[in-house]
């Protein structure tokens, strides 16, 4: 699942994931609120949960860190199913540090997402992404 307010970046991230062959089932949410709503609904209706969430850091209304705070309060089913990668164009070392410290975040990638970065990350983390 891609959580990203910028449609161009949604397009880029979707194409990169497709090209890397990581997953062919990709959904995107244009706000953190919609993403949280989606996760809760899917959990409630016993629908499949995303294995990987690509989370943008700076978004209007609710940003990536606020999403993480809310995510921590979700059910253990959701928390154990979804691994989170944070994405940002930020150069602020505090953002990087704060993201990496979060227990649900497996990595922090500086934008743009590329196939090489994604594959390198998947090789270093044993994340299984089912289609």
């Amino acid at each position, binding site marked *: 699942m891609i959580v990203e307010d910028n449609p*161009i970046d949604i397009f*880029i991230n979707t194409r990169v994931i497709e090209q890397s062959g990581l997953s062919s089932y990709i959904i995107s949410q244009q706000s953190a609120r919609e993403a949280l709503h989606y996760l809760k609904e899917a959990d409630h209706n016993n629908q499949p949960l995303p294995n990987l969430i690509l989370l943008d850091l700076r978004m209007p209304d609710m940003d990536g860190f606020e999403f993480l705070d809310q995510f921590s309060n979700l059910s253990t089913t959701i928390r154990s199913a979804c691994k989170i990668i944070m994405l940002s*164009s930020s*150069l602020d070392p505090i953002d990087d540090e704060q993201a990496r410290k979060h227990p649900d975040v497996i990595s922090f990638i500086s934008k743009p997402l590329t196939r090489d970065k994604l594959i390198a990350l998947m090789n270093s983390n044993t994340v299984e992404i089912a289609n």
Partner: protein
Amino acid sequence: MRTDFIHFFCSEKDSSDVREIREAVAVPVKQLLFDSPFEDNQVIDLGIAVLGICDDSQLLIRCSEKIRSLNPNVAVILYGEGISGYLAFRCGAVAVISRAEQSSLGLIVSEIFTTQKQAFSSLPYDKVLDLQEKNKELEKINFELDRFVYSASHDLRSPLTSVLGLLYLLREELKDENALKYVLLMEESILKLDNIIRDIVAYSRNNRTEIAAEPIRIKELVKEVTLSLRYLETSGLHLNEVIHVDDAGVFISDKIRLQVILNNLLSNSVKYRHVAKPLKISIQSVFNNGRLSLRISDNGIGINENHIGRIFDMFYRTSEHSTGSGLGLYIVKEMVKKLGGHIEVSSTINEGTSFTISIPVVHKRVLIDNLDESN
């Protein structure tokens, strides 16, 4: 007998009769710590804090730390029996008096005020308060500026990273070689712009932020830096294969600043490499007398002696072929200066360039020795 709370503050005009003040303003230590009855500015007004000794010395230490954080100029006096030198030191006390010496408290208090007055004689007391106020304001402005720089740089970079992402995708899908050439040139221009933004952020950050201290290993630092320089690599050039590092062990310094320094020097080595020979970079680190000497040498095109005296100047670019912003080496010099060190350069045309940085650091071995001593 030890009492569990007595402690009191006195201000200058009241110092004539400490006993009365004690009865008037005595506040239990616990109350001061957990729900202070004082407003911040009231504590700033106080020149002297008298802390009555209680059984809980940790509580006393925290209390004096709190008072001194509210007003760094406050003179702390400990009052009571059996006060150890260690406790007085931890509390930052200027005087220790026992109950038997209570009568001399007034004398000590007036002595302290005289010394404080001498220290501030060129500045009236309200001026000091004014300066403290101004200092707080500046700290706030600095903090806001810091946020502004990161926020603005993020907003500038966002569209750039989108364009870069699209170009990377385009590169994968393009068959036409001419078009591919255009895409690569576009990529190069955008990366150049991105580097200028990074330079500006690094420069502004260096001026405003305090020096950090964390354990560092040159080998690991170089590994991180080469990862971020991967965009400079070409098909025949892999940075981790051309850089040789002599690692001298763990030391304590400012990691982010050293990262920027290495990043700028190594990217120069790559940009100004010699076309006729394979690039070689060597990084040597040596500890000597509390200083780290870091030497970064390459076998590149070298710097003309007409230019070498000015390469650390702001916006200085050696020729029209220089691709950077003219800020890179200026930032390196400023950062080394901020770390309390100095940088030297030597270069021979067509042979190579070598930069030597010397900065004061704490070497891990020294840390361990000191720990052993204190145990």
